[in-house]
């Protein structure tokens, strides 16, 4: 059964809908990537799924239950974690505090969860007393993903996790995403580094103008000449 299904979703902030009927599916053990040109509605799609942008038509299903337009609090309770592209850490709080707040909704001992996050991101253990706001972009991204992993999600949603990172850090980030996925966590991510992202993805969606343009397996999209000329820089 699929973990997440978005069916014919229309959503937007004001008068006009940014999303004009998108369809997405994420399986429980998949990495699914959304690519597309600027203004295609990639980030809006993520926000709409997570209940941050009102959906006017269509619906979102998560493990068979309708979760359309539910508040983020309920999404977190169901095991969906979302990492926005910008401002994704609490800057004046320490790394440890950022992670602790990730598990705010969890009652009981959170040490095992912390240990798991430290295993994936050993750097965070070293720097746990550091203020998140003064860390480098790559480290902040680790904090943001670590924060999201604290609820032990079944679905992790990442909005451009490699934006602004150096090539070496981009490789490392994709490697971490693969490790996270290997733990049995479904990953849905929006990426600008389309070529690399599709390289690790099971499936990919190309969005344009708020609607689906192409969908296929990662390798097939990479090989598609139309996709290549439009979105992958030739």
């Amino acid at each position, binding site marked *: 059964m699929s973990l997440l299904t978005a069916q014919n979703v229309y959503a937007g902030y004001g008068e006009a809908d940014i999303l004009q009927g998108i369809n997405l599916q994420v399986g429980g053990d998949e990495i699914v990537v959304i690519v597309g040109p600027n203004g295609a509605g990639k980030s809006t799609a993520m926000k709409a799924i*997570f209940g*941050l942008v009102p959906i006017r038509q269509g619906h979102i299903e998560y493990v068979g239950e309708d979760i359309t337009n539910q508040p*983020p*609090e309920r*999404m*977190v*309770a169901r095991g969906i974690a*979302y990492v*926005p592209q910008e*401002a*994704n*850490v*609490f*800057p*004046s*709080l320490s790394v440890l*505090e950022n992670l*602790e*707040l*990730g598990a*705010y*909704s969890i009652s009981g001992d959170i040490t095992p969860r912390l240990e798991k996050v430290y295993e994936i991101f050993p750097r965070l253990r070293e720097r746990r007393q550091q203020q998140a706001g003064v860390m480098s972009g790559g480290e902040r991204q680790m904090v943001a993903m670590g*924060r999201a992993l604290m*609820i032990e999600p079944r679905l992790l949603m990442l909005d451009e996790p490699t934006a602004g990172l150096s090539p070496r850090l981009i490789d490392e980030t994709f490697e971490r995403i693969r490790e996270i996925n290997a733990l049995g966590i479904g990953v849905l991510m929006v990426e600008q580094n389309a070529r690399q992202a599709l390289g690790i993805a099971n499936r990919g969606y190309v969005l344009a103008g708020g609607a689906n343009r192409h969908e296929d397996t990662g390798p097939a999209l990479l090989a598609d000449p139309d996709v290549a000329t439009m979105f992958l820089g030739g």
Partner: protein
Amino acid sequence: MWIEVTQLFLNGLLLGSILALGAVGATMIFGVLRFAHFAHGDLMTMGAYFALLVVVGLNLPVMVALPIAMLMTAALAVGIDQVVYRRIRRVQPVILLISSFATALILRAVVQMIWGSSNQVYATGIQLPWRLGPLTIKPDHVLIFCTATLLVIAVHLFLSRTRMGKAMRAMSDNMNLALITGIPADRVIMWTWAIGGALAAAAGVFLGMDTRLHPVMGWTLLLPVFAATIVGGIGRPYGAIFGGLLIGCAMELSTLIIPGAYKPAVAFAIMILTLIFRPQGIIKGAL
């Protein structure tokens, strides 16, 4: 000369600790709710009069009345939020600000209706000051300063050790991310009002112990309290403590060179200088 300076500095610490208690609450409310709470001074007044109620009604000493007044004011602040501010939270901040101004006037009118508009005191009689060489210190002042310090430490422990305290700092840091993380905003807001109200009450009671009770006692302190939050960096509780002490000392020490009636102007001047030269505050603020 140095005796006078030291004496004024001690007075400044006293005033500063009272300002700090008000400023910590005001800055936390700003951090979480993004508006300057103009009724904060009148919450102090309410706190002071709640304590008077207990002191006169139950014939208890003022330090016993203090925690009761703090609880009552915390409840009042949460109640005001539920009745007034919660409904208009989603509109422009300026509307919240104006509403808080109206709330301030209502609170003051309530105090005048119930307790009248003349000066009142917790205890009559003269307290003999302690003499430390050439300096004089009132026992009450020591009591106020120590209790204020304990309260500030309690706030620090709350903010740094408890889940709710961390959630409060997180909301003040990044409201949107707090929402995404699943932090229950409504509960955090309630706690913010409760703590802000309790601290305001303590400030009011201390002010009443130091001088007298009067329906505008808190209102007149609002300006220095806001100055303290701005100097300390808006939304930063630790900055507000520092800002309060700085403004308090500056106000007292200014009487060396200018008439005492201009003390509030000193707070205002420091606030303006801060806004011109370091608008983010000494500790970088949320704005």
